[in-house]
């Protein structure tokens, strides 16, 4: 299956391991992710000012470029791996589907590109994998991550808000999609109460104290619940959680990795984990070579 992929800025510049492991994992499952040509930044936060559509333009421009290519694909969807890109693209797309006056304003403003016809659907990689079937993932596992205790950290953008309908990838108050996926690769999900809480978002730039207040709690909870590793699908969550790790205990850090990296490990393809983290993880897996 061939589908369009929106990588986003952080996957390209800061966390190539997320993009590469996503592509690898999908390849193993027979999914080809094709990058949207000439995509631009999504805007990161969906603008909540309903009287101003300017801040939706970055997302729309990329969707217009996606629509050029979508006919060559096997589904009219745009797949994203980054939680924040997902949230913005999803919300902008839903807004334009539901509010024709805003669509018209935007289309008449953009005169160097064709009009946007909101027929695409924005899908998070987790949702795509669930649709393909976690049992299919399970069938492809070469090294089950047996004994590895995984704390699934959802954060905000995958789950909220819940209006308009269709934004959350799972029940916003009690999600299970990440845990179910982790089970399918043989790992053991660890429950912890802060999995859907906020990491502090962009405050890391000017108010790192706010991020530290949040992430210390999240990290220490995951640790005291016995987790060996935390998985996320958000580059900013990962960065902020690492900050919490540093503040708490620079030496005894709990690895924070992208969910696709653990999948890649289990499916026997390149996980793009750095050596130190990889070894830490392998040591926890029963019957692993480490």
């Amino acid at each position, binding site marked *: 299956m061939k589908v369009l992929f929106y990588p*986003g*800025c*952080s996957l390209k*510049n*800061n*966390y190539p391991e997320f993009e590469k492991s996503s592509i690898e994992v999908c390849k193993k499952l027979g999914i080809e992710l094709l990058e949207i040509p000439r995509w631009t*930044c999504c*805007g*990161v*936060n969906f*603008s*909540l*000012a*309903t*009287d*101003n559509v300017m*801040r939706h333009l970055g997302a729309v421009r990329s969707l217009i470029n996606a629509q050029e290519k979508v006919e060559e694909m096997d589904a009219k969807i745009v797949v994203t791996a*980054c939680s*924040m890109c997902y949230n913005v693209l999803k919300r902008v797309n839903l807004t334009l589907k539901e509010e024709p006056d805003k669509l018209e304003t935007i289309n008449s403003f953009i005169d160097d590109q064709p009009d946007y016809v909101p027929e695409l659907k924005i899908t998070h990689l987790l949702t795509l994998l669930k649709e393909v079937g976690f049992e299919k993932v399970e069938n492809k596992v070469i090294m089950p991550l047996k004994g590895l205790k995984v704390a699934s950290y959802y954060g*905000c953008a995958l789950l*909220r*808000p*819940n*209006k308009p309908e269709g934004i959350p990838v799972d029940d*916003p*108050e009690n999600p299970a999609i990440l845990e179910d996926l982790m089970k399918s690769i043989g790992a053991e999900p660890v429950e912890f109460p802060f999995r859907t*809480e*906020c990491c*502090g*978002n*962009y*405050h*890391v*730039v*000017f*108010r790192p*104290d*706010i991020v530290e*207040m*949040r992430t210390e709690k999240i990290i220490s909870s995951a640790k005291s619940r016995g987790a060996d590793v935390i998985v996320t699908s958000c*580059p*900013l969550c990962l*960065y902020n959680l690492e900050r919490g790790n540093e503040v708490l205990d620079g030496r005894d850090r709990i690895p924070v990795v992208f969910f696709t990296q653990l999948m890649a490990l289990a499916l026997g393809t390149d996980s793009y984990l750095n050596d130190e983290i990889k070894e830490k993880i392998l040591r926890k897996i029963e019957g692993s070579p480490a």
Partner: protein
Amino acid sequence: MNELAKRVIEISGQNVYACYQCGCCSAGCMFTEKMDILPNQAIALIQRGDKSVLEKETPWICASCFVCTVRCPRGLDVAAIMEALREIKIRERDFIRVDLRKIENIEKLPQIAITAVAQKFTW
């Protein structure tokens, strides 16, 4: 309807008068210990047309996590109300909240953090 409430409703699309001050938003908010008033108190000030709410820290501490929005029993998008309070200040062009030239650690920060802060705090 007071001027302030009118403006907030215009920008956020949320009927601030629907709020009955149950405090559910503030109970779920993970950032209250850094705020100077609670999110529900900010809404009470808007309802009364008290412009001092525009000088509070709270809207700037709000991280748009949408917990309040998911839980409000009156269906209010509280995060959007916080954004409206920020927007009112931001749209006064001489208002400067942050100086993007003074970002420390710029090479390491993920790009999305910087773009997000620019989006939320500047015009």
